[in-house]
């Protein structure tokens, strides 16, 4: 009668056709296989990344890029097609500011000054 010891250390016959399969596998082009460890690491990394994207607090909305006070600057009137507000004119001769006097004009687009 066969004992457990005999069965445990008995040499079993491999499945038939092993040599032929080996021969054909040798002839196949080399396969690149991804190991289980790499695959598990990849899945875990994707899961962590997804969790971070979902759970991390969102950054606050960016502040208004253009401040309205900048848009109100008179230098932008012509650029934005607004009517220009009257700007006080100053004239300098050498290092000294001289006085000017505005004269009446019949054309509203034309202003006439006289240097005093």
């Amino acid at each position, binding site marked *: 009668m066969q004992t457990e010891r005999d069965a445990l250390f008995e040499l079993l016959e*491999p499945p038939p056709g092993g040599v032929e399969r080996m021969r054909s596998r040798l002839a196949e082009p080399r396969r690149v296989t991804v190991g289980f460890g790499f695959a598990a690491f990849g899945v875990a990394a994707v899961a962590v990344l997804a969790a971070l994207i979902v759970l991390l607090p969102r950054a606050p909305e960016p502040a208004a890029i253009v401040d309205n006070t900048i848009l109100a600057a008179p230098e932008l009137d012509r650029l934005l097609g607004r009517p220009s507000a009257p700007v006080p004119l100053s004239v300098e001769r050498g290092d000294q500011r001289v006085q000017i006097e505005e004269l009446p004009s019949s054309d509203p687009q034309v202003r006439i000054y006289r240097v005093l």
Partner: protein
Amino acid sequence: MTGVDEASWVGLYRELEKPLYNVVYRWLWDRMESQDVVQEAFLRCWHARGGIRPEGFKAYVYRTALNLASNRRRSKKLWRLVSFDALREEPPDGNDVAPVLSREVQKAVDGLPDPLKRVLFLSELAGMSYGEIAAVTGVEEGTVGSRRNRALALLRKQLEPREGVPDANRA
């Protein structure tokens, strides 16, 4: 082993298939998967043959096959855990025409620490000397002997009420 051709490689496979298959089978308990692991080990060695010395080939292919078998076993256990298959009894390999070991013996073998199991089956199934086993496992010959004895003692303890296991005093 740069100069070796495919025909010679198949010859090496033919020579080593049976003992290697038998060692790997005690890890996986599945005939087709064990044969696949043996072939995968030979394929890997084939692609790495440029860096293998002829005198070190046997140790190299056994080491590769044992590492593959250990990894597959670990993966299978993990997948069983994930898919809750562990709750079911694992069926034995139904296609096996060879004597099927009882679940108790399989469990006792599976419960052996990997380094002890390697030494035991390389000695008992591959018929390797302690020196050859030392080359495969990377430990001293003295360690091989003590591991073999510990493996047998553990198996005997597990299976005490059942049949005996080989004499631990074998040289």
